[in-house]
């Protein structure tokens, strides 16, 4: 993790309310799939706190892109950054998606001896931003991958990087709430269909999206005893473990104590879905 100042290469609107920020750094940044940065325009007095954005794509050694939804005051100020302006970045942060046969984050429910050979990537809305590099890595490692891409409507899907996912050339199923693109409904529909096929019994699910979506995906995965990893969102004060504000409740066997809460920024953002206490009211803005 380093604190550095990056230069804005471009900050184009991808679709109304969604933009792609390309930053160039003075030196090489080793960002792995699923990691994020805490960003803030240089010299911006307000809002005070930095905003967490996942690394969307590595474009050459010193350039990274960030795909983001313009939601509140922080992303609004980022949206106003013009090329050649500066952005303060604390990067890379958090853990990364464990891609087999590398070491698992905390051991998915692997059957004895069975190796996960298939991946189901479930993207909900702007959650796609932390999944593109994962798909690239899965492709590089020859892991058979199905992408389920859900969004509110066609324009939002575009804003969430649909074209980049299409360009991967992997099997892609799209759902939109209003049916304006692909299947009408949520990604959980196609997910359940896939998990009925035996070939996916050893699969690993990688999910990132609104809390409600991830909790449904976790439920489906547990029912089919398929391992599932989620990348969580939480309000972040610092992004590097000191404010203790970004916590999520985790299942601990003993009575509530120090470790009933884990910090999304340093203990995550990626967790094994089994460890998360899902039936709490969603703490994120969505």
């Amino acid at each position, binding site marked *: 993790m380093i604190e550095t100042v990056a230069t804005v290469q471009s900050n184009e609107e991808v679709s109304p309310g969604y933009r792609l920020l390309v930053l160039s750094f003075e030196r090489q940044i080793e960002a792995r799939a699923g990691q994020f940065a805490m960003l803030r325009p240089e010299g911006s007095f307000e809002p005070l706190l930095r905003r967490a954005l996942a690394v969307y794509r590595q474009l050459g050694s010193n350039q990274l892109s960030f795909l983001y939804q313009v939601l509140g005051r922080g992303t609004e100020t980022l949206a106003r950054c013009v090329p050649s302006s500066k952005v303060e970045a604390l990067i890379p942060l958090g853990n990364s998606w464990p891609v087999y046969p590398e070491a698992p984050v905390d051991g998915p429910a692997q059957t004895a001896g069975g190796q996960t050979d298939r991946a189901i990537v479930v993207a909900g809305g702007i959650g796609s931003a932390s999944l593109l590099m994962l798909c690239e890595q899965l492709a590089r490692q020859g892991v058979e991958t199905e992408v389920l891409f859900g969004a509110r409507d066609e324009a939002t899907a575009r804003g969430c990087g649909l074209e980049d996912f299409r360009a991967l050339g992997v099997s892609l199923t799209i759902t939109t709430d209003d049916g304006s693109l692909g299947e009408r409904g949520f990604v959980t529909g196609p997910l359940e269909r896939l998990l009925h096929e035996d070939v996916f019994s050893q699969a690993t699910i990688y999910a990132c999206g609104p809390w409600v979506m991830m909790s449904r995906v976790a439920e489906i995965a547990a029912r089919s005893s398929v391992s599932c990893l989620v990348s969580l969102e939480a309000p972040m004060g610092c992004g590097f473990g000191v404010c203790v*504000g970004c916590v999520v409740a985790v299942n601990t066997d003993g009575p509530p104590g120090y470790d009933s809460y884990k910090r999304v920024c340093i203990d995550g953002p990626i967790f094994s879905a089994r460890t998360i206490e899902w039936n709490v009211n969603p703490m994120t803005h969505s």
Partner: protein
Amino acid sequence: MQTPITHDPRLAVEIAGIRFNNPVMGASGTFGYGLEFAELIDLNRLGGFSTKGLSARPLAGNPPPRIVETHGGMLNAIGLQNVGARAFVEKKLPMLRRFDTVVVANVFGYSDDDYIEAIRILNDGEGIAAYELNISCPNVKEGGSVIGNSPVAAARLTEKAKLASSRPLIVKLSPNVTDVSLVARSIAEAGADSLSLINTIVGTSIDVNTRRPRLSYGTGGLSGPAIRPIAVRMVQEVAAAVNIPLIGIGGIASASDALEFIIAGATAVQIGTANYYDPTVTIKVIEGLSAYCDQHKLESISSLSGSLTLG
């Protein structure tokens, strides 16, 4: 040990016999246990820091959401999640001893006895320079009234803590009172070696769509530059009421902000919320104080302490 760094001698200050290389510290709850910052700054350059609040037993803290941003600040209701005094002494302190920076253990409890129990455990820890008593906590044995809001309760706890403590005692004042100098005087008279102020100001933020508070606890503590004018005024008032050294806290994000507190009467300062969004702010402020000494031909920063000219 890293190559010894040179400290600007003009910045050295002393509080209750403890020598600080400079007056800039990290505030409790915003500096973790110090080690989290080792990757970002050279801890040897830091005057010191106050640990996350430590209680006799480890605590889970409040359910999320625990933080929300406000204009110029943030509200927090972390609920004092911490590893507990024992784990701090055994697991964190050994690693901290490698650094040449003053380590202050922030202590809290939900009754006088809680505080004393935590202090006893910390007394075993080697490498702690002083205790900072967070008295902005509700006393569950006295109907949850905040100890720091009553001169009597605050003085009583200070006396007991002073007796139990093997080290100098800093008491951290709550700003949520009509007359902060009244509470300050009673704590000073009860034997505190130094006072640090201010802790966070109680506030709330409501999500107008769900009609619920944005923090699960309901209210939270307001911190950051938004509260700085209130904090500087309170340091000024307390400086006129007591003559034990003060540590100024509240919205400091630059050398100029730190100097406001020193000129108002503080001997040292603590930086809190600014560490979150400007992780090297402590070092920038230290360098800024040296630049100020150059610019004003100042021999020592402590000569500035309480140099406010009125009228």
